[in-house]
């Protein structure tokens, strides 16, 4: 049976997934610097390679920055999700009291607490959905950067053909960068799926609360 991951775990897991992305982006930046050094040595033979390495280097630095931002936001998201879990627990306990203690003289006095927690939950879920969408956009941004990087790497292979004795080295680096892009895309996809799952859960709760 497929057991659904709690939303606060999904959101916390995004940070863990992206820790790998940050590391790979760092490695990518080092590979690019190597490629740049080789291209410099190759001189005129690898003239077209330098702008490509500059672009990928800049992109890997930007990706690391983006990952750091997403990490901070996903920790915040997880904090909100845990607060939601507490609200949910309170709400369920209050409802339990309402059902089981109908004959209590002062049961009506609990209504204000039930209503307060219900509103807090609703507001929390709306906030979580909004926050998750913002994170998904940031993740999309990384995904798109990786797609562009793939195109650039293909171009770099064409440039490498002209680099004669440096060709093998430059192609090997291009392969490394391509592999890194692929891993980052996969990690981003996993994070996006986790967020989609969390958003679905929160949307279901909001719809339930509205109904």
């Amino acid at each position, binding site marked *: 049976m497929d057991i659904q991951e709690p939303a606060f775990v999904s959101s916390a897991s995004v940070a863990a997934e992206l820790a790998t992305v940050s590391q790979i982006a760092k490695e990518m930046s080092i590979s690019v610097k190597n490629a740049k050094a080789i291209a410099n040595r190759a001189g005129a033979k690898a003239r077209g390679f330098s702008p490509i390495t500059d672009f990928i280097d800049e992109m890997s630095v930007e990706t690391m920055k983006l990952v750091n931002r997403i990490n901070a936001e996903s920790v915040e998201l997880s904090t909100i999700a845990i607060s939601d879990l*507490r609200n949910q627990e309170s709400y369920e306990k209050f409802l339990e009291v309402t059902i089981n203690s109908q004959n*209590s003289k*002062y049961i009506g006095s*609990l209504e204000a*607490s039930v209503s307060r927690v219900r509103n807090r939950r609703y507001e929390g879920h709306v906030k979580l959905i909004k926050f998750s969408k913002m994170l998904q956009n940031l993740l999309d941004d990384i995904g798109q950067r990786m797609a562009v990087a793939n195109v650039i790497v293909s171009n770099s292979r064409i440039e490498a053909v002209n680099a004669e004795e440096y060709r093998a080295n430059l192609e090997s680096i291009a392969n490394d960068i391509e592999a890194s892009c692929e891993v980052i895309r996969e990690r981003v996809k996993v994070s996006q799926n986790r967020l989609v799952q969390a958003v679905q859960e929160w949307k279901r709760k909001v719809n339930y609360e509205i109904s």
Partner: protein
Amino acid sequence: MKSVELFDRGYQWIVFGRDPNKPDGIIDTNQYLVKTHDRALVLDPGGIEIFSSMLGSLLHHVAVEQITDLFASHQDPDIISSLGLWDQALPTAKLHSPWLWEGFIRHFGLNNIEYVPIPDEGGVINLGTVKLNIIPAHYLHSSGNFHVYDSQARILMSGDVGAALEPPGADMFVEDFDSHIDKMQMFHQRWMPSNKAKNDWIKRVRQLDIDILAPQHGRLFKGDNVHRFLDWFEALEVGVAIQD
């Protein structure tokens, strides 16, 4: 959850416990309510597991908005792990608890309730028409620990002192003190770490006029049994897990 009125002269003391719905494997606890005409204090409100049952029982006696104060004698989960839930139910209440444990107790979830730190020497919980004394009970068993004494009702809420481990459904009061010793001896010898702290507490408590000694677990002591308990406890060697 069972509730028994301990005092009713202008205000009430009520004990709650022997919860038949309590999940197996968790220790049974006594919770106390002091209710005046417009305010109420819940003493050692209990753990998360009994929250629903406790709140439901309280609502037989008091409205939610009337509960203005909570007291936690120390930091243990059976005392106050329900705090995060009370925090949602009573957002304007105050929690009186040892200053020593504030940073720890807040881990149970405290966003709305005000934490009122009790200094080591104790103090007073002022419920308007009723004032309760906070009596130091450090190292009995917690390193920052307090009991609550009501000089008018002559009740001492004694936290873990006087506690006993009994099967579910035990009576609320000790009837035969001698036969009760077996149920509380190990608890005191193992959970209480310091003979010095114990004797210091006994000296202080002997100066109080006590009709009911009301622990957080097991039966309550009334009348002569209070003095029998103090004599027994004074003679008891505690902190026995450490061998010479």
